[in-house]
């Protein structure tokens, strides 16, 4: 159960050089562009762009292998069960019915369904590189200042920073408690039945939770004593100043965002791209 949460390593690429705030703004702009549009051309264009950015940021495949596997499994199951639940969703959206095959019963194969499901899969897949780039090229200490930069209240931003700070601690505590319980004879290995292992995992939560509650008191007292939360604003140690590259990056992604919206409004006259009518 060892997992390195954010394998951030410092490299000299243009994307690493951007400030956390501008990367976060770019990430949000592109994500919303993809979430709004249902035009496969727009989505593929953004996908090409984000894979290009992935290359520029020199992220190695070994760093993201696990995520890629999870995403592929997710996309495949989503593809299959979407079809099982609603084989006529595509024709319903596009209003036409071009059949090119028939499996059995209501399960026909239509070009509309293929376009709809293909677009949806791309829509899910295209945000993945964006998230990966943001996570792996941003110093975790910069997250909080980036969130605060987009007007998230600094107390909420600080809570995110604290969560990131405590992920490894909680993981270590969980392992420690698990070891000591196993030393007392609690079976957590594969030999135990799944039901028992699940119950034993729950038994670990209780001491974990209670030691945590004590810790909350200690930490918040320490923060209060240092005057945390007295003012309406605060400054950040890990904040980077805005440079020209930051404005360029925001400019590029903002124009992609606007382009995606205008394709929907002026070209397709709806969120969906409809080549069938």
């Amino acid at each position, binding site marked *: 159960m060892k997992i390195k949460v954010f394998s951030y390593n410092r490299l000299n690429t243009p994307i690493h050089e951007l400030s956390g705030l501008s990367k976060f703004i770019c990430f949000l702009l592109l994500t919303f562009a993809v979430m709004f549009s249902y035009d496969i051309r727009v989505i593929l264009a953004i996908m090409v762009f984000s894979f290009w950015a992935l290359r520029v940021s020199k992220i190695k495949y070994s760093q993201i292998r696990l995520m890629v596997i999870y995403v592929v499994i997710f996309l495949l*199951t989503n593809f299959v069960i979407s079809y099982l*639940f609603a084989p006529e969703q595509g024709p319903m959206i596009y209003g036409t019915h071009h059949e090119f095959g028939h499996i059995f019963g209501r399960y026909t194969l239509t070009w509309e369904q293929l376009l709809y499901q293909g677009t*949806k899969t791309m829509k899910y897949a295209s945000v993945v590189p964006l998230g990966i780039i943001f996570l792996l090229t941003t110093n975790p200490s910069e997250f909080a200042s980036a969130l605060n930069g987009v007007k998230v209240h600094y107390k909420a931003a600080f809570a995110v920073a604290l969560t990131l700070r405590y992920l490894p601690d909680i993981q270590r505590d969980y392992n420690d408690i698990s070891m000591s319980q196993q030393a007392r004879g609690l079976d957590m290995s594969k030999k135990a039945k799944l039901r028992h292992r699940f119950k034993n995992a729950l038994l670990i939560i209780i001491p974990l939770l209670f030691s945590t509650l004590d810790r909350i008191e200690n930490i918040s007292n320490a923060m209060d004593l240092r005057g945390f939360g007295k003012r309406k604003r605060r400054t950040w140690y890990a904040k980077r100043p805005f440079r020209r590259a930051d404005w360029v990056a925001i400019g590029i992604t903002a124009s992609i965002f606007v382009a995606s919206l205008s394709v929907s409004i002026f070209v397709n006259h709806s969120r969906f791209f409809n080549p069938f009518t």
Partner: protein
Amino acid sequence: MEEKKKLFQFKTSTIVAVGVGGAIFWLLFMFVKVPSPIPETSFQTAYGIAGFFGALFGPIAGGLIAFIGHAISDAVQYGSPWWSWVIASGVTGFIYGISFKFLKVGEGKFGVKGILIYNAVQIAANAAAWILVAPILDIVVYAEPVSLVFTQGAIAFVMNSISAGVIGTGLLAIYAATRTKEGSLNKE
């Protein structure tokens, strides 16, 4: 010195509770779960933790714990958060936290009445999030098939209610038993 409980206060302890609680939520969300027969849903013990923290620290803590924990877990597993379900998680945690106003777990009181209130709030929260928010966001953003998302939503509703009900109630009862009750000291 009865301090009046404010539902939406944002004290330092709330922030720290979010930080540490979010980390526990994340841990359980990633590792302590049982997959269900319906694809893309599983029995998440993490919602019991969200219920526990919500009842102890209020809606802001509950909401942020579930939101941040779920978002980080998605980011680690899939590279990017799936916003529709992350937002629904946040809604769940936020509504769980409303029970904070009616409970006195911190003073060691969590009797039958407390259990009923906590579970009523918890079931309402899960219904709002998984039968309304999550499916509707999925339909609006991804144009997912209506029948699919409502089936998934209904399963998530049942499983998360059981998780928050059984695990959350159990943890709260254990916690209440460790607290010193008000007026338990008598002058002789």
